[in-house]
Structure formats: structure tokens, C-alpha cells
């Protein structure tokens, strides 16, 4: 890897230092007294119980036991490929949660792209159960 790429990789790493080392399952988090995940920078990120319960209500009926295996926090992937301030949500269950919050009836897909006002709304509803991830452009 050339020095320039190394510098860039370091920048991307530092921007994503707040992401969890390992995401935890919804069922596991609900069992914890203080639901939290450990971040890459060594700090802890607490997830509000009310948000976990809200997520469980949103997807519980449709996904049943599968919902308990849902990994949290939900990642809002800021992908420059989709344009400025566009974010991608990947995973069928995650897309269902986001659509339930935004009150949209889209076709169920594995991936949806949302823009700034929707991101704000999503973050307002689930401030601790969602996290931003910064991705690099493939071009």
C-alpha cells in the first residue's frame, strides 16, 4: 500500500472509530440490565431500552423469532456514491424498521437509500439504536 492510501485508510478508520467492534443481537440486548456495545475506540455506546422495545414491537409481528437475532445498532451508511448526504440501509429487517419509522410503503427490498430529512427523522426516533458509518466511494 502506498503512503497516500495508508493516510486515507487511517482517515476512514478514524471516522468510523465510533462503530461497535461487534454488534449485538436484539434479544441479547433486551436481556442486559444496561444494554450497551463496545466501540472500536474503546468507549461504550449505551442503547436506550425504550428504543429496543420499540424496534421489537415494529418487527416482532412480522419476523417473529428472527427479530431477536437482529444485530444492533442499525448502520446508516453514508455512501458518497449515491450523492451528497444520501445514506444506505442494508438488510431486509433494517429496511422494514426504517420504513415503519418513515411511514413509507415501499416494496420490500434488501437495500434502501434515504436522504437528509429522512435521516434526521430516523435519528430522532432512534438516536441510540442507529449509528452513522462512513464509506468510501468506489470511483
Amino acid at each position, binding site marked *: 500500500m502506498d503512503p497516500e492510501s495508508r493516510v*486515507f485508510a487511517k482517515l476512514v478508520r478514524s*471516522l468510523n472509530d465510533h462503530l461497535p467492534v461487534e454488534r449485538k443481537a436484539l434479544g441479547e440486548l433486551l436481556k442486559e440490565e444496561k444494554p450497551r456495545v463496545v466501540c472500536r*475506540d474503546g*468507549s461504550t*455506546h449505551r442503547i436506550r431500552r425504550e428504543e429496543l422495545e420499540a424496534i421489537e414491537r415494529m418487527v416482532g409481528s412480522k419476523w417473529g423469532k428472527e427479530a431477536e437475532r437482529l444485530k444492533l445498532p442499525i448502520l446508516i451508511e453514508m455512501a458518497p456514491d449515491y450523492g451528497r448526504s444520501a445514506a444506505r440501509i442494508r438488510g431486509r429487517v433494517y429496511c422494514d424498521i426504517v420504513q415503519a419509522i418513515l411511514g413509507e410503503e415501499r416494496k420490500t427490498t434488501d437495500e434502501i437509500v434515504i436522504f437528509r430529512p429522512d435521516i434526521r427523522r430516523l435519528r430522532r426516533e432512534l438516536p441510540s439504536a442507529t449509528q452513522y458509518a462512513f464509506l468510501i466511494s468506489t470511483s
Partner: protein
Amino acid sequence: MAEIIEGISPTRMELLKLGRRIKLAEKGHKLLKEKRDALVSEFLNVVQRVHESRDSTNEKLAEAFKDLLMAQAVMGPDAVWQISQVTGQEIKVDVDTMNIMGVKVPMITTEDVKRSMIDRGYGFADTSSKVDDAARNFEEAIGEVIKLAEVQQSVQSLASEVIKTKRRVNALEYIVIPRLKATAIHIRMRLAEMERENFTRLKKIKAAIEAGEEGAEAA
């Protein structure tokens, strides 16, 4: 035009290196801009929560103080003070952190601070109902004050991170990238000039050689 970077030799190798550095700086700039936008949006969300929280805290406290004044008017300030001394004054709060794009903001949770009339610890017979109202409203206000403390601290932490990120974005946008581009232009111009100089020199050498050959032939 921006200043050029001192001490860089005008070679094709340096030009290639500069090209790579410009690309890298532009990519970094794009990413940091995304982070700045996300932070600003987060900041605005929290500011809105501060406003809402402050309004409801003020409302609850105003109501509680009104009831307290009424209770003091009915029973007298000393009696109310004595009642306040027998009630429990400890509230358990749990302070944890939430990580928003590297900004550690507090998350304060508390058990329900609202107590029943029996738990408050004073007798019903010789107290006014206004004391109960005041106590209930103050208990509700405490919950709001704790929420307000959390969002207020979050606003401060996010604001300083927004400033820091903005400074980095501006440094890249207005200093680093223009300087790199100016240096690349300078090297390109210098290389073109060297090529022109070389061309003229070669022409002169060729003319001199030709003149020399003609002289030899004439002799």
C-alpha cells in the same frame, strides 16, 4: 492564486505524486464534508430537543412553585419546611455514554422519581392537599431537569465537534487542495518551460553543427 509548496523539485515524478495527493485530499474532503453535514443535522436535532425539554421543564417548575406558594400560604412556611425535612431526598441516576460519530454524549437514566403519598413520608392528617400537588409536580419536574441536563451537555459536545470538523473541512478546501493544485500547475509550467528551453538549445546546437560542417566543406 494559492501559494505553492516550497522545496518541491519540478520533476515528472513529483507531478505524479502530487496528482495522487490531490486525489486523496479531495476524497478526504468529501468524507469530512459528509461527517460535518451529519454532525450539523445531529446538532439541530438535539437543539430542538433542548427547546422542547426547556419548555416542559419551565412549565412543570412554574406549576410546582405555584403549588408550593399555595401550600406555604395555607400551612405557613415553617410547617412546609418541616415536611420537606422528613421526605427522602435521594434520587438514583445512572450516567452512561452514547457515541455519536466519536462525540461522547451523556445518557442519564433514572428510575421513576414519582412517589406515592405514603412513600413521601409525611402524615396526611395535618397537611394540605397543596403540599401533595407541589411534591408531585416537583417530582415530575426533576425528571424533566435530568432530561434537560442530558441534552444540554450533548449540545455543547456536538457544537465543539462541529467546529473542529468544519475547521478541518475548510483547511482542506481553502488551503491544502488549492496549494496542491497550484504546485501541480507550477510544476507543469516549469516542465513546459524546460522543454521549450531544451528545444531552443537543441536548435542552436543543430545550427552550430551545421555551420561548422558548412565551414569545413568551404575550406
